[in-house]
């Protein structure tokens, strides 16, 4: 099937070349990082995780979000998702690969990576993260590839794939739960030490992943002969709306606990992120913007006439994606380190090589999505013809 990715328009090839350039530039930057060390990034003794881990966290969510089309299709037999469920799975594949790459570029001794397997450590959440992420990648490859192959042949999906599909549903929940547990079990990091970290991660994941899926499907609908079905897209939009409302509600819960209790440790990071603390507040415009954009997105999705308009729907999905990205892909990880254990503040400024490396991983994700979607769309177009 993969050969279908080799036939495309000049725009298609232009896009592929653009992504390859992005990846190439990031690869050079990574070689530089390997040679000199992680000191080339903006990370420091106080902000010991930065763009890489923040992006990792966000894309675990995008990967888990794919389950929002898998559940209706396989647990509720919602037939309108029959044609798009494979796109959810392929998006998850790309997102998990990005996650794994973000981890690899973040560790100081990548050649020792296998130590995680050589010295398995069940009391470390990172050990479980390794298992669930790799497992989820494998599950989505199995499920995505086989369902598409069956579609191509015009036969029902083979029976042995079904158990893998069912396992992939709780597994999707597990990847983001474990990722939340990386943060939510650390004493002394007040901002992360919250029992609703995992639920909030899942809510934002079920908003962000499907929002990205909507954007891509609307694009696919415009530029290819394959129509994913406006009904299906509308249903995904409703899922995004619910999930985003729950996400904003959870965020409000965090604010309530912090500011009604008035416990300084609980308030400090929120103050830093949303109003500035001790004269520091570089993230304030972004975090406030995230709330405004998120509410705007929810408003667009709530009003049926607006939601049914594909252009406004694209704006709504982009708003939700951007809002959750700022909240989780920037504020959450950086905020956890501010203030530091001495209640002083060091701010974080990612460097050019660091951003180049992160952009390259986005490029890898884009390339995987492009190739897998190209194949899937070609199969769908054949079916329609």
């Amino acid at each position, binding site marked *: 099937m993969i050969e279908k990715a080799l036939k495309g328009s000049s725009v298609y090839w232009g896009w592929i070349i653009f992504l390859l350039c992005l990846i190439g530039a990031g690869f050079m930057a990574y070689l530089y990082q390997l040679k*000199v*060390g*992680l*000191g080339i*990034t903006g*990370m*420091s*003794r*106080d902000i*010991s*995780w930065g763009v890489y881990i923040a992006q990792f966290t966000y894309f675990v969510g995008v990967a888990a979000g794919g389950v929002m089309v898998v559940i209706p299709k396989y647990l509720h037999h919602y037939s309108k998702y029959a044609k798009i469920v494979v796109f959810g799975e392929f998006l998850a594949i790309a997102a998990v690969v990005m996650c794994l790459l973000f*981890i690899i570029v*973040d*560790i*100081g*001794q*990548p050649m*020792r*990576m296998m*130590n*995680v397997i*050589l*010295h398995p*450590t069940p*009391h*470390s*959440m*990172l*050990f479980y993260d*390794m298992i669930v992420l790799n497992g989820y990648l494998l599950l989505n490859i199995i499920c995505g590839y086989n369902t598409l192959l069956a579609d191509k042949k015009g036969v029902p999906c083979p029976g042995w794939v079904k158990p893998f599909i069912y396992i992939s549903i709780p597994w999707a929940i597990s990847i983001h739960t474990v990722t939340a547990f*990386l*943060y939510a*079990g*650390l*004493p*002394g*990091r007040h901002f992360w030490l919250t029992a609703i970290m995992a639920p909030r991660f899942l809510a934002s994941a079920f908003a962000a992943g499907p929002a990205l899926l909507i954007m891509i499907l609307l694009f696919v609908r415009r530029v290819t002969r394959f129509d994913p079905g406006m009904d299906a897209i509308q249903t995904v939009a409703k899922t995004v709306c619910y999930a985003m409302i729950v996400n904003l509600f959870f965020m409000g819960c965090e604010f309530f606990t912090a500011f009604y209790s008035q416990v300084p*440790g609980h308030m400090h990071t929120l103050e830093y992120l949303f109003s500035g603390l001790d004269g520091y507040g570089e993230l304030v415009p972004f975090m406030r913007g995230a709330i405004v954009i998120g509410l705007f997105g929810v408003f667009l999705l709530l009003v049926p006439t607006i939601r049914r308009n594909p252009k406004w729907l694209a704006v709504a999905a982009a708003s939700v994606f951007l809002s959750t990205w700022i909240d989780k892909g920037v504020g959450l990880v950086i905020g*956890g*380190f501010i203030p*530091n*254990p*001495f*209640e*002083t503040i*060091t701010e974080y400024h990612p460097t050019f090589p660091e951003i180049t490396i992160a952009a390259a991983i986005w490029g890898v994700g884009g390339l995987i999505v492009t190739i897998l979607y190209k194949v899937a769309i070609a199969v769908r177009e054949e079916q329609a013809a």
Partner: protein
Amino acid sequence: MSMDRRKFLKAAGLTALVGLGGKGAFELLRPGKVDAEMGHKDHGEEVHGDKKSRSKVRLAMLIDVMALNKKNIEKIVHTCHYLHNVPNWGDPKDEIKWIWEDEYEHVFPDSYNEYNHILKGMPFLLMCNHCDNPPCVRVCPVQATFKRPDGIVAQDYHRCIGCRFCMAACPYGSRSFNWLDPRVHLRIEVAEGRKLNKSFPTRMRGVVEKCNFCVERLAEGRPPGCVEAAPDAMFFGNLADPNSKVRSILRERVSLRRKLELGTKPSVFYLI
């Protein structure tokens, strides 16, 4: 290979410590024997290692804040960083710290009392707390940081993958990461007249490090470098032994420990 080294280190360290017991400026081991001879019993104070091991040794450091001054602080920090070949990057972004000075309000941010003018602005020495319940050990995915039977939280620079999970987990900011190659910088410092301690290894970039309670010196029967540098301000000994010098000091002096509410059970005490 690395497993063997680790086991060897654990065994060697303990044996050396046991051999030391009862001699020198700081007494360490044989608490069980002493207990039996003196008829002492531990009255349920929180001194032991984790419940399962019921270790008879738990090494602890006492820092007499009242005896600290600019001069001995500088000597302590210099001694430690010399002994362990800690580079002096001069830039807070890249810096490595094993022991360093900070003010009361930063050391005890959760119990800071603005009306306490005695402690306000007073210099404290910060180091790894060698917690009895260390979160860094809990989160490390490769057991590169681990707790020895004597309570020392050790770091294996040869196994560490540099994920920095331990830095996020440590509530005391005690851990440093080698963002750049420390050997490159040490070479520059040597050219500028710094001396290297040839008996202690330098590290490579991309791994985490911190205070090790001078485990390499303990193995030779010598006290930690900071204690030797300021014997009237730093005291080291076995917290699990009710008859030890550190326990008798703790019975007489008021002491503070950092962020006790987190349940990490620090082994560093501040005498005030």
